[in-house]
């Protein structure tokens, strides 16, 4: 299978703190890769370096390369704004724009960047909400404020907003950790469907979730990539002792 994103000796520093240490790994196209590991192991930091979200963090420094479709996104002359349109992100806490309606949230990626024809916007909103299975729940109140939705609905709205701008990769930073079990299940089913069209990289605290949704799992510890492989193998016969200890709950 094709490689969509490739990390090559990726290092991330926050001031003196070396948060991610020379990580090299591939992310396959149209599959789900889970990044697991204990708190503070650098998994979110890796994720955020894939769409250059660290650019705005004071004191953050990235070395090495992140290759997306043959292109190093940290090259000079690469516009991070264009990268983020190709590589979208869903955050831990649902973060719809509070002042906007459901409709406006979905189309925000276009509206915030300029104008868009009404008919085209209608189409994008409907198809994006359909894709995240939210359309039937909200089609009669698209003008309602997005904050009226439940947490799980808000998170699906955020995913709809992300896929509305037609990315190729979707980064998810613990997308279900703030949700109840039923909403979590819905998000997981959604991830399963989305991988047909998108490459998905998901950070999760929840090992069962990683085992359920992912094709490939990467285990991080203290900023190092310890092991990366087929999810089935990682969860049954890992090569490294540390991985086994973590997965069996002996630490972390």
């Amino acid at each position, binding site marked *: 299978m094709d490689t969509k994103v490739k990390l090559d000796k990726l290092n991330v520093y926050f001031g003196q703190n070396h948060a991610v240490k020379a990580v090299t790994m591939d992310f396959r196209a149209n599959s789900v890769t889970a990044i697991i590991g204990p708190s503070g192991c650098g998994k979110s930091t890796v994720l955020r370096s894939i*769409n250059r*979200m660290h650019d*705005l963090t*004071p004191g953050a420094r990235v070395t090495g390369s992140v290759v997306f479709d043959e292109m190093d996104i940290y090259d000079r002359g690469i516009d991070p*704004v*264009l*990268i*983020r*349109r*190709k590589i*979208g*992100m869903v*955050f831990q*806490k649902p*973060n*719809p*724009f*509070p*002042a906007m309606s459901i409709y406006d949230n979905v189309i*925000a*990626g276009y509206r*915030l*960047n300029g104008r868009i024809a009404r008919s085209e916007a209608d189409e994008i909103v409907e198809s994006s909400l359909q894709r995240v299975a939210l359309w039937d729940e909200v089609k009669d109140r698209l003008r309602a404020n997005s*904050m009226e939705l439940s947490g799980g609905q808000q998170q699906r709205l*955020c995913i709809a*907003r*992300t896929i509305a*701008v037609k990315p190729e990769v979707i980064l998810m930073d613990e997308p279900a950790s703030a949700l109840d079990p039923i909403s979590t299940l819905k998000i997981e089913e959604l991830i399963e469907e989305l991988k047909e069209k998108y490459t998905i990289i998901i950070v999760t605290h929840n090992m069962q979730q990683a085992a359920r949704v992912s094709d490939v799992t990467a285990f991080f510890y203290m900023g190092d990539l310890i092991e990366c492989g087929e999810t089935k193998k990682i969860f049954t016969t890992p090569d490294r002792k540390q991985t086994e200890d973590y997965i069996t709950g002996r630490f972390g």
Partner: protein
Amino acid sequence: MTGLAWRKAKNGIMTLMMAGFTLALLIPLVLIFVHIVRMGFSSISFDFFTQIPKPTGEAGGGMANGIFGSAILIALAGALGIPVGVFGAIYLSEYGGNRIANFIRFAADVLSGIPSIITGMVAYTLLVVPFKGFSALAGACALSLIMIPIVLRTTEEQLKLVPTSLREAALALGVPLWRTTLKVTLRSAMKGVMTGILLAVARIAGETAPLLFTALGNQFWSRKLTEPMAAMPLQIFNFAISPYEDWHRLAWAGALVLVTLMFALSLTARYFGREKRYNP
């Protein structure tokens, strides 16, 4: 006395003391307001808002030119001061590096602590002397210097209250930082920013000292920005120190209108500031 009774007594004494101090705080405000209303209310008439001051000895007359002049001065000062304050705050909160931002913050704090008469002198030296004449423009510049640090600091505080998650949401959609700042961050903070601007306007509406040797004031209609212009605080000042009974009455009426205006502005600002803020 048992322990419990003594504890209850202490509680009562302390509560009484606090009520007393609160009252002491309220008394001057109430006294000022009551006095101004008593002295000024009888002199407020339709003429007060439509006529310019009459020569001494003639009855009637009003402060229409002062009200008009104040409106012009405040509008001009706002046009100069609000953009500088708001965009400066955006720089501090969204773009600034640590060292430069800290220096600007410090400078703004010092600027807001400078006595307003000094601000007037600076405007006099830089804008009145070189152009050989008092002018409304010089007055507006002096007022805007007072406005800038207030608007800057309140706007910065409001921008910092906008959750990072909202900025990141927009950035992750491929929206450039400048658009994110204007359309998401600033818009979310708009209510608080408006409150800060209103408070700054209330502050400069009553400033007299910076206008004394910049806008100077006069007794007739003046529409040219390059010439002296009347303003309410100046007229109150001039009328109050004059020896004429008629003018004293006008001064009281002017004081009442000015205080009412500031009261209304503060209330509006409070009303805007009170509205519920979204907390994720």
